[in-house]
């Protein structure tokens, strides 16, 4: 029982990470309809910025906030310079651009910050808390969960309860009609990217602190799991992304512990999950159904 609980907690720890990256993916997808393969690498670059700032003696929280602001601006600039010119072009072109970004940002990060593993200090107190059943949970993990919940709530309020959110959703639903209503669609799309880059910066900085040292490969496998979580959640639900991140994380941890046959190929778990869920419900667990017109 204790082992089981520990594995579940372990899974939650990873799942929170997957969920927060999935959140950024879903945000861009919801506001601009683009699947951003460079999301993980953008987060990686911001993480390096946070790390560099803490090296200069800044407190961790301050460093993360500054790097989030930088990411916000950089995300907007990327959208304006590279994604906006693709408007009206084939989706494939946008995919190629994000893949090009993936390669470019990763290699630039290695150029600027070196290839050696670095240590990112944690924003949370160290140590663990004892739970019932003899399991322990790290304070880091608790911190991540709290941050993620706050993030979700803030995003939900932004998208559903503010004028800005209404405009964002209008542009996502139909850019042409939104323009006719006087909404600056270009600004909104840019804002979506900027926001997602900021969320990615936060997620990356917190994840890196959980690991004993991070390098340029930090986000790659996380991105695969985050994509799985986003797909499970149906790509357009914020809460769906987070909950499915947790599901993927827990399923993964339990498989590693209990299913010896899948030793080394646990990646099959999120893959199988997506397949089963999509075959039963083609729009994911939390996705909206769409009607197709001929």
């Amino acid at each position, binding site marked *: 029982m204790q082992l089981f609980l520990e594995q579940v907690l372990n899974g939650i720890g990873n799942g929170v990470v997957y969920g927060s990256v999935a959140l950024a993916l879903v945000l861009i997808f919801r506001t601009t309809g683009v*699947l951003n393969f460079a999301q993980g690498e953008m987060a990686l670059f911001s993480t390096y910025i946070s790390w560099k700032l803490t090296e200069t003696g800044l407190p961790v929280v301050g460093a993360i906030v500054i790097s989030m602001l930088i990411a916000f601006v950089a995300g907007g600039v990327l959208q304006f310079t*590279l994604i906006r*010119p*693709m408007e009206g*072009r*084939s*989706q*494939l*072109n946008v*995919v*190629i*651009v994000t*893949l*090009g*970004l*993936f*390669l*470019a940002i*990763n*290699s*630039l990060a*290695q*150029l600027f910050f070196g*290839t050696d593993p670095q240590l990112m200090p944690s924003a949370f107190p160290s140590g663990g808390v004892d739970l019932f059943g003899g399991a322990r949970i790290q304070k880091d993990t608790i911190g991540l969960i709290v941050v993620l919940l706050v993030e979700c709530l803030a995003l939900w309020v932004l998208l559903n309860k503010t004028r800005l959110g209404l405009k964002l959703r209008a542009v996502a639903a139909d850019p042409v009609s939104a323009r006719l209503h006087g909404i600056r669609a270009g600004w909104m799309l840019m804002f979506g990217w900027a926001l997602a880059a900021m969320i990615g910066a936060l997620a990356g900085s917190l994840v890196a602190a959980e690991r004993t040292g991070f390098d340029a490969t930090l986000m*790659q*496998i996380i991105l*695969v799991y985050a*994509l*799985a979580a986003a*797909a499970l959640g149906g*790509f357009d639900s914020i809460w769906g992304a987070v909950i499915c991140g947790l599901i993927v994380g827990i399923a993964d941890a339990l498989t590693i512990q209990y299913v010896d046959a899948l*030793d*080394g*190929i646990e*990646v*099959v778990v*999120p*893959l199988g999950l*997506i*397949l089963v869920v*999509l*075959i039963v419900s*083609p729009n*994911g667990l939390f996705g909206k159904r769409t009607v*197709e017109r*001929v």
Partner: protein
Amino acid sequence: MATEQTGAATEPVLGVAPPDVMVAPAAAGTTPPLWPPVPRVVFVARVIIGVALSAAALYAPFYFQPTMNRVLSQAIYLAIAAMGLNLLLGFNGQVSIGHGAFYGVGAFTSAILMIDYGWSFEPTIIASALLTGVFGLLVGLPALRVRGLYLALVTLGLAVLFPRVAQKFVDGTGGRPLLRPSRKEFSSLIEGLADDQWVYFLSLAIMVALFFLAWNLTRGRVGRAMVAVRDQELAASTVGVNLAGTKVTTFAISAAYAGVAGSLSVMVDALADGTNPVLYFQRSIEFLVAMTIGGAATMLGPAVGALALVLLRRNTQDLIEGKEILAPAIYGASLIAFVFVLPEGVVGGVRRLLAWLGRRSSAKGRPPTHPIPDDSHDIGGPNERT
């Protein structure tokens, strides 16, 4: 007079298949005549391009050093896989980021059959094609239900999964999933051809055969069904296209192309590698990129794109001395630049140029009764719904 013939001959073409029903007419094969009538300038340009390309392809291995010939052979297997992906994505509208996995299955099938079962290389290509075709069929079945973006992600999972499966089940050099068939297995069977030239010509012959197979496929009934499913699935099903059959068959054929590419890679690189966890994901991306920069839903596009990609990769590697780390950045940046300058790929761009030349030349004479169908605007947007 050339212009009059052209103008008169264009009518039945439009009559048989109105452009609003058939998208990308030139690529998909709208019409019974083998050579759809085109302005003379365009026809001459096509012939010149075709002859020049064939001559260059045949002469290249005698001109270049063995290392360059190996690079060209790599471009050929990349082109075969990209052609397969083009059938699936360009013509049928199904996204796959998992073709790296099929490529890997092909590579390991060849390597295992040669090392453990003592086969000679050539028959293993057929075995790989059949096996990956079956795998493609199996993946194609859930793909009936899982579409667009989701399909991209499920197939992405395949590409990430494959090296782990290899790591678990393949016991190669030093217990690692690394199979190296002896170079002797691939030595030249024709006197007067060096080994590297033999490898090149064998790859080239297989590519040409597969090219004509794909060409025939897309110009016939099957090809029209594929394009119809891509453009409007529901409408296609109402006019009697077998949706499930078309999609699954396309998936299987496309996977078999990737499998053959994998087999050939064992010959070219003398290696089947399962040690790098992201290698097959990278391969998937390369196929996608080669197809897109060459020109999606065009016949020559994948080959042109593959060549461009391999040369780009090779030349960015040692562009800046001491800063090898920057190579992926330059490579990525050039990809982005490519998409900006030639959104429809190289072949799409050339086609647009030819169409422009054609319009100019016919404008000099009598204005044509029907405008020449400009098919270039339909390329490149195979899956708007993703």
